[in-house]
């Protein structure tokens, strides 16, 4: 004789009310057959038998409270009684017809039994592995850094059939900030490569597909890795770009088509190549759709196709055009510089022209300036600072800065001056969130310094300026400028600025209107200081005067505030003592 006891129903479920009994003495039960319904405080569950045989005695009654382990019935000629507990967890799923039973598996294990619900999570990856490893996995361009959405593929290091392991660099991407090696986050054998050299690649774009290769042990971790892969790739990326920017030097110089090819190929053909238009397969769009795209000035290859096999319809082209226009109107999006501009005349009518693809820093600068100029109502406030005394100090403390590896420049001093000013005038260290109608005050002072490099304008950022002294700032600025010119800046070096300084004094000029570095709200321009006659102590004296130009976002900053802010800066230059008193 075998006893059937109420099996474990789940963590914290110790008992239930018997709401339905499906057996009586003499009934033949088989293993897995539902024998009763129990109402716990979580759900109504069907309890299947773990034994087989003919029911002899039923020891419970309808409506009775039954505890786990309590004997329910006994069977003759039975078997399997010992397996009661082992089979219990599968109880609710054994049968499916009554309603309570179907709800039970959903609620009972997950809510009532954390241990059980945790354990499937821990074990499910194992059964998934076989299917996972027989499937093709995809490598998409991971997040590369803040505000980096795309890059030009300057070097592809893989081809179909190549073995790739995790962390191995697979391509070099020229972003507007740096050239970086992108490592794979997956291992396996490359199946299809979906990008080609010269192409512009966006974050999230499919780069290649992988078949599980010989090194498939990494696949056992894949389910959990899927979530991590982005972070992982990003970290690997950051590590890669910090490794002394070696890749930057290997990369093609931007804005410069390979000169050797010009001689042998026709120029127009060649320029098409420079624009990355070569080696693209036939686009899945009907001829009239391609024509429409051409007429709208859209590169059909950029239009996402919603039809079968990625087929691009007329509607897809129009939708894309609309999205570009919307992006332009709101001052964002990659097309911002392209569509709003009125059509160009045919310059070829007046003589020979050359078209060169706008890449990297130049393209980013164009987009960014357009955004800033379109979004910000600019005003530029001019002032002058008498830096005669400061110049003496600068010469005096020059060697100290040199000792620390820096150069005591006016820009270095301006960093300190501005940091102090920003503490006193926090609205200059802020951003506007028009969408939420809020002002974002930043409680850190990171100042970007515009650096003129042969690749174009770069703005490395010096962090926590208010916490550093002038000698430290001079050293850091010298280091960053060198890094910028040596093409070794990482994207992280150019992120997070709250204010910008641009110094054109080394070249000349008496004043200019800098463009605010969006989403910042102000920028200070320095021009060339010169000796000027200044009326003081009842006569004209020859003084060294530094012209200052402050452009600001008039949405947030009023003219009077700007005048005060700039005056404070001018006075700080004039009386460095002010820094130690107020700054």
């Amino acid at each position: 004789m075998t006893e059937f006891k109420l099996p474990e129903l789940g963590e914290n479920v110790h008992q239930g009310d018997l709401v339905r009994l499906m057996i009586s003495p003499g009934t033949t039960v088989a293993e897995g057959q539902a024998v009763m319904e129990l109402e716990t405080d979580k759900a109504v569950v069907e309890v299947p038998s773990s034994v087989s045989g003919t029911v002899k005695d039923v020891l419970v009654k309808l409506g009775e409270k039954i505890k786990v382990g309590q004997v329910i019935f006994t069977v003759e000629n039975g078997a399997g009684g010992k397996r009661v507990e082992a089979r219990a967890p599968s109880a609710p799923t054994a049968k499916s017809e009554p309603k309570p039973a179907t709800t039970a598996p959903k609620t009972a294990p997950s809510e009532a039994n954390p241990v059980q619900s945790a354990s499937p999570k821990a074990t499910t990856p194992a059964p998934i592995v076989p299917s996972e490893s027989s499937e093709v996995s995809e490598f998409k361009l991971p997040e590369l850094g803040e505000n980096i959405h795309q890059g030009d593929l300057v070097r592809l290091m893989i081809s179909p059939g190549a073995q790739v392991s995790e962390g191995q660099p697979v391509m070099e991407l020229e972003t507007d900030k740096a050239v970086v090696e992108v490592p794979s986050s997956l291992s396996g054998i490359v199946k299809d490569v979906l990008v080609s050299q010269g192409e512009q690649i966006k974050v999230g774009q499919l780069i290649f597909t992988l078949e599980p290769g010989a090194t498939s042990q990494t696949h056992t971790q894949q389910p959990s890795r899927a979530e991590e892969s982005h972070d992982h790739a990003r970290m690997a990326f950051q590590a890669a770009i910090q490794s002394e920017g070696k890749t930057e030097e290997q990369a093609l110089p931007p804005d410069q088509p390979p000169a050797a090819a010009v001689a042998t190929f026709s120029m127009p053909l060649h320029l098409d190549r420079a624009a990355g238009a070569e080696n693209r397969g036939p686009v899945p769009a009907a001829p009239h759709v391609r024509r429409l795209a051409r007429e709208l000035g859209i590169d059909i290859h950029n239009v996402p196709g919603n039809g079968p096999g990625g087929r691009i319809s007329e509607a897809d082209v129009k939708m894309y055009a609309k999205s570009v226009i919307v992006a332009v109107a709101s001052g964002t999006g990659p097309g911002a510089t392209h569509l709003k501009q009125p059509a160009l005349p045919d310059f070829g009518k007046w003589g020979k022209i050359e078209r060169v693809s706008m890449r990297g820093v130049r393209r980013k600068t164009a987009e960014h300036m357009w955004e800033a100029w379109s979004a910000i109502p600019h005003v530029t406030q001019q002032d002058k600072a008498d830096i005669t005394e400061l110049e003496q100090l600068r010469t005096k403390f020059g060697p100290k800065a040199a000792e620390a590896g820096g150069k005591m420049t006016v820009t270095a001093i301006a960093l300190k001056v501005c940091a102090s000013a920003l503490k006193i005038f926090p609205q200059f260290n802020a951003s506007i969130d028009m969408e939420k109608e809020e002002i974002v005050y930043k409680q850190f002072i990171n100042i970007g310094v515009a650096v003129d490099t042969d690749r174009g304008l770069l703005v490395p950022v010096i962090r926590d300026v208010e916490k550093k002294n002038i000698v430290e700032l001079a050293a850091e600025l010298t280091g960053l400028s060198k890094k910028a010119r040596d093409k070794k800046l990482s994207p992280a070096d150019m992120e997070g600025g709250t204010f910008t300084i641009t110094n054109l004094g080394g070249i000349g000029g008496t004043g200019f209107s800098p463009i605010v570095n969006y989403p910042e709200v102000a920028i200070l321009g320095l021009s060339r200081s010169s000796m000027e006659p200044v009326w003081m102590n009842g006569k004209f004296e020859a003084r060294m005067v530094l012209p200052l130009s402050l452009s600001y976002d008039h949405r947030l900053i009023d003219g009077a505030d700007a005048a005060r802010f700039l005056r404070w800066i001018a006075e700080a230059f004039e009386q460095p003592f002010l820094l130690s008193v107020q700054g």
Partner: protein
Amino acid sequence: MTEALQQNIAVVGGGPGGYAAAFLAADLGMKVTLIDREQNPGGVCLYRGCIPSKALLHVAKLIGESRHANNWGIEFGDPRIDVARLRSFKEGVVNKLTGGLGQIAKARKVQYIRGDASFENSNTVRIAKNAGGEDSLTFDRIILATGSRPAVVPSLKLDSQRMLDSTSALDLKDVPDTLLVIGGGYIGLELGTVYAALGSKVSVVEMTGGLLPGADRDLVLPLYKQLEKVFDAILLNTTVTAVKEEASGIRVCFDGKDVKEREKVFDKVLVSVGRKPNSEIPGLDRTQVRVGERGFIQVNKHLQTDDPAIYAIGDVVGEPMLAHKASHEGRTAAEHIAGHKVAFEPNAIPAVVFTDPEIAWTGLTETQAEKDGREIKVAKFPWAASGRAMTVDRTEGLTKLILDPGTERVLGVGIVGAGAGELIAEGTLAIEMAALAKDIALTIHPHPTLSETVMQSAEVFFGTSTDLYRPRR
């Protein structure tokens, strides 16, 4: 468009590219001058190429079929061939077509000048008129559509009536007893087929290891088998080292690993070793036009040369040297001059070899995919399973689709078999419209036709062809 803004353009060369450009330019409101040596527009294609060769090939096919009819219990006697009347049939076709084009040019108010053009500068053309005298005319834009001519190999250069090129072969002066065709490309095979049908013993010599280099081998094979029967000999991997005229004909010396007979005498020798672009236009150096490798004029995708005033289209800008490519380019150039945003960016250009059986392909070929290392899937439907092919007793054909393995999109179509040239158009449309294999399989094709084989090959891809059992993929 106001009169003041009306563009004045010249098209140099009246072939299918040139007259298509000229006519569309006129339709778009431009003032057009078309310059060509011939009496009417038409060019090589109409006068000395596609059209006359097709008239003759039609006759060859008829002769072939009349012999084939023996298999079905119908016997014709040997054909009696009146070469003069055949020639005048061919010339009648040519004259009708070219004369028609002349009238269309007039109707469109295209000024047609017979003569040779040379450049004085980027915008000025000097025309040495056939009728005598010279004109110097200035244009806003000039389209070069000067075409190509048969290539000449120095070692095969021999001034003799017995040496033919495609032009003189089409003149059909007589039917030689023996003819050697040098070059196993489409021109040599088409003309060889004509002469073989008319009674010549034709031998073909090809330098490479197969006929129609570049075409997929599975498409060439059925043709090869047929030509083996029709031709006297097909000499592959063989080069001609010398030709010498003798009293009885041309003595030809062969070299190559498979050569058995080192020398042989032929009544006539047809040299068809390719075509050369006509880019040696006098005065072109006074413009900024650049001529690149192999003599092709360099153009961008708008068919514009490096000289902003000058466009170029057709054979003179590159392969494939096909009339339908030229006319599409011509129309693109005309539209671009009119200020439309157009580009020559076809997804597929069909090619047809009008032999018997015909071979046709469009878009990507297997050969090209292999060269590019591109992964493809191929679905083939052999005509042995086609009811229609059986009824015409031509089951040697094959239809295949070249598909993208991921999207199952049709990237290329290849067909060999009777009438393949007419069937390929559907393939080109499928590629241009980005059709998937499923689209073709689900499109009802008329029964019983050979066009069904296109649908059936798509069904084969899915392993569900009604007429051909293949285990599922």
